């Protein structure tokens, strides 16, 4: 899988930030819409929310289902994906379903979950799991399936047992894609928890967004939105760097 070109120097990144925020400031001051605050006001609102603790509380509330969901989903998903990769029977039964699930808008099921499980932690955890599971399972599966057949023949030629093959060759080889699956799953998890909070319940970041929207406090609403996007971006980027260090492309091999 090809890596996208790296953004480049710190200088370029700074220029990029300046351009973006500068543009935001300008557009905000333009009298097209009262609902679009300039960057400076948004920044101020952000600071206010950090100071009065509302942002902190919201994140605590949002991160709970996210972490729980990803951990559960990760363990079960990776396990199942590996099972799919190693067993033709399991693959036969599950592959079509997961292919469809990967393409499907799972978000459609979230309202149903709300009506079923109420507006608590369970619903949100389920929302995370629903959205993250397909990509985690499929990536683990592909990691196992795409093992270089030459390596497998090599282990057979040296009389390796199936168990040795799985443990010493297939799993290390799949580790890189499994990790990628987790990273992508986390991204989906963020999406799931945000949708859940916007739809379901008065807690967390989603609540901050809808509340401030309803009282027309647009700087604070924007600030909440920007904060969750920034948070997700930073977390996922950090995981990408960990991934690059753990699995440099040379060690991924063929």
């Amino acid at each position, binding site marked *: 899988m090809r890596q996208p070109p790296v953004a480049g120097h710190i200088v370029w990144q700074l220029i990029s930030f300046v351009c973006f925020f500068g543009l935001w400031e300008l557009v905000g001051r333009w009298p097209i819409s009262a609902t679009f605050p300039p960057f400076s006001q948004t920044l101020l609102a952000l600071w206010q929310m950090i100071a009065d603790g509302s942002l902190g509380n919201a994140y605590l509330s949002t991160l709970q289902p996210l972490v729980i969901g990803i951990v559960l989903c990760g363990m079960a998903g990776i396990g199942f994906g590996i099972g799919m990769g190693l067993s033709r029977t399991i693959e036969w039964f599950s592959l079509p379903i997961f292919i469809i699930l990967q393409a499907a808008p799972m978000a459609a099921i979230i309202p149903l979950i709300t009506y079923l499980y109420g507006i608590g932690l369970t619903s949100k955890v389920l929302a995370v799991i629903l959205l993250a599971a397909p990509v985690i399972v499929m990536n683990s599966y592909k990691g196992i399936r795409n093992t*270089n057949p*030459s*390596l497998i*023949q*090599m*282990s*057979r*030629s*040296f*009389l*390796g*047992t199936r168990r*040795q093959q799985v443990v*010493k*060759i297939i799993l*290390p*080889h799949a580790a890189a894609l499994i990790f990628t699956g987790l990273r992508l799953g986390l991204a989906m998890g963020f999406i799931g928890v945000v949708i859940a909070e916007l739809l379901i319940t008065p807690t967390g970041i989603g609540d901050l967004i809808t509340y401030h929207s309803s009282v027309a406090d647009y700087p604070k609403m924007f600030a909440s939105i920007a904060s969750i996007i920034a948070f997700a971006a930073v977390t996922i980027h950090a995981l990408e760097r960990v991934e690059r260090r753990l699995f440099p492309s*040379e*060690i*991924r*091999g*063929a």
Partner: protein
Amino acid sequence: MPDDAIVEVEGIGKTYPGGVEALRNVNLAFPRGKLSTLLGPSGCGKTTLLKIIAGLIPHNAGEVRVNGKKIQGPGPERAFVFQDFALMPWATVLRNVAFGLELRGDPRAQREATARRYIAEVGLSGFEASHPNQLSGGMRQRVGLARALAVDADIILMDEPFSSVDEQTRRKFQEDLLDLLRHRRKTVIFVTHSIEEAAYLSDQIALLSPRPGTVSRIIRPNVDRGRGADEIRRDRNYLDTVDEIWQILKQYV
């Protein structure tokens, strides 16, 4: 069948699912302690035959006997060297060379000591801690060769081992291989499409003709290898052999 044949191939046939008949009625004997080559153009089934002898792919007809006994898949007396090296990219050279021993269950200290010995033999001392991506193609194949030697199998099967390296490295390899084998009683079955390589290395050459693969001729070059590596390519028998083979294979190109 001449000499003491350690590997006998009798009536081997192989048809791939889909109908492609790769091999038909192949009969060969490989003498103990000698280097035999399977030579032929692309599509003649030489790699297929080698993998059948290795026990890596099943055959549809006939049987393969090693030391008189029918084979049932891979065995400890046969070691394989792969064309694309088949090294584990996440493991060091040391671990890769010791892999056959690791699968066998040898204790760590013992297998690492053995591995180090063979790493030195193939000329890679100092690279024990490197990863395959840090090595050139030629060096990677040496790792593959060391791995095959380390399990101390009687028979080494080599699938176009030098085709992925450049000409100069290849020549060096051929010389080194002869050197390595000189002091050991190993039987080598070698697959190549290079006529010169076959004539240079082999005690026996089996020419395979394509579609479906069968043995068209067996040639014993009888080249004098005693006078040094460089002299081999000027040996009368070597040159005659190359000529003879080319005349036969020309018609298949």
